[in-house]
């Protein structure tokens, strides 16, 4: 795909790249279809990997070819990478406290209690508006999520 069109801002005259952009869009569309069908598989991990892996690929295509980061100055690359790296840092440093509900000599009692309440409510059939609620745990497929 990358060899298809060579666009350059510095170039004096601008060529028409619309065909190339439409091809990128078609690729995005196909990827999107794959990610939706990925959710139809009965395996939880396939759903997750397909869903987020394809999101990454789609974001890469949009950022590279639509936002033209591939021909952008390095300072933009550094700034974007720094922003993303900070969010990774934030997640890494905060998740021991928020994601975990227990750690070295501490337990998050409130979060445990909330989980038990929700589990109990679910077992008691909460969300009655939802016809044919799947009686499955979080490892179930989400195919019936669409109304």
């Amino acid at each position: 795909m990358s060899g298809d069109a060579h666009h350059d801002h510095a170039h004096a005259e601008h060529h028409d790249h619309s065909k190339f952009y439409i091809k990128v869009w078609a690729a995005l569309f196909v990827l999107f279809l794959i990610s939706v069908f990925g959710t139809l598989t009965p395996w939880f991990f396939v759903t997750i990997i397909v869903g987020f892996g394809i999101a990454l690929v789609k974001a890469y295509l949009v950022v590279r070819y639509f936002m033209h980061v591939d021909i952008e100055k390095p300072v933009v690359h550094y700034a974007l990478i720094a922003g993303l790296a900070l969010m990774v840092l934030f997640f890494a440093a905060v998740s021991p406290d928020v994601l975990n509900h227990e750690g070295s000599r501490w337990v998050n009692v409130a979060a445990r209690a909330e989980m038990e309440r929700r589990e109990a409510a679910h077992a008691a059939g909460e969300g009655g508006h939802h016809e044919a609620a799947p009686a499955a745990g979080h490892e179930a497929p989400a195919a019936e999520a669409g109304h």
Partner: protein
Amino acid sequence: MAFRPIATTRSATGMPTGRLAIWWLIVSEIVIFGGVLASYIMHRIGHPEWAYQAEHTNLVAGSVNTIVLLTSSLLAVLAHNAAEMGDGKKAAKLFVGTILGGLVFLVIKSFEWGNEIAHGYTITSSGFWAFYYTAAGIHGTHVLVGMIVMGFVAYDAWHGRELQRIEFAGIYWHFVDVVWIFLFPLLYIAS
């Protein structure tokens, strides 16, 4: 005021000033959305029971909206292409298409939310729904702001002015699209 600073016409980095500013804006937006999404992901992994609520999201509406935003992004990049070739009228027309894409996105979103609220899933129902409405709401606000900005830019482009702004507004719009690319699996698929 007839004053137009020379500063605006300088480019010591070799990049147009507007594009440089847009990139800095996007960096600051990355950390705004990053803050919401990181918080959501932490809670989501820590609370497996949120999956019960996530099942009630509307995958069809989310999917259609994904296609709508991807297509509007295509129109925005085509407008940029037209603007680079100096065709302001074509660029403006394509940008109107992008704005319509944003409008369709918001209309679908409001029907989707209306339906969910009617079924009793409001922002206070649970942690999941609070994040669902907050994250998508912040994103929707960005869609709205982008549409308004693009309206002004398209008006100028139609009259042959400030064609470079098509690219700047387009970069912002693609960023909004990228955010949705991640929001879609986070809110709809991962149940």
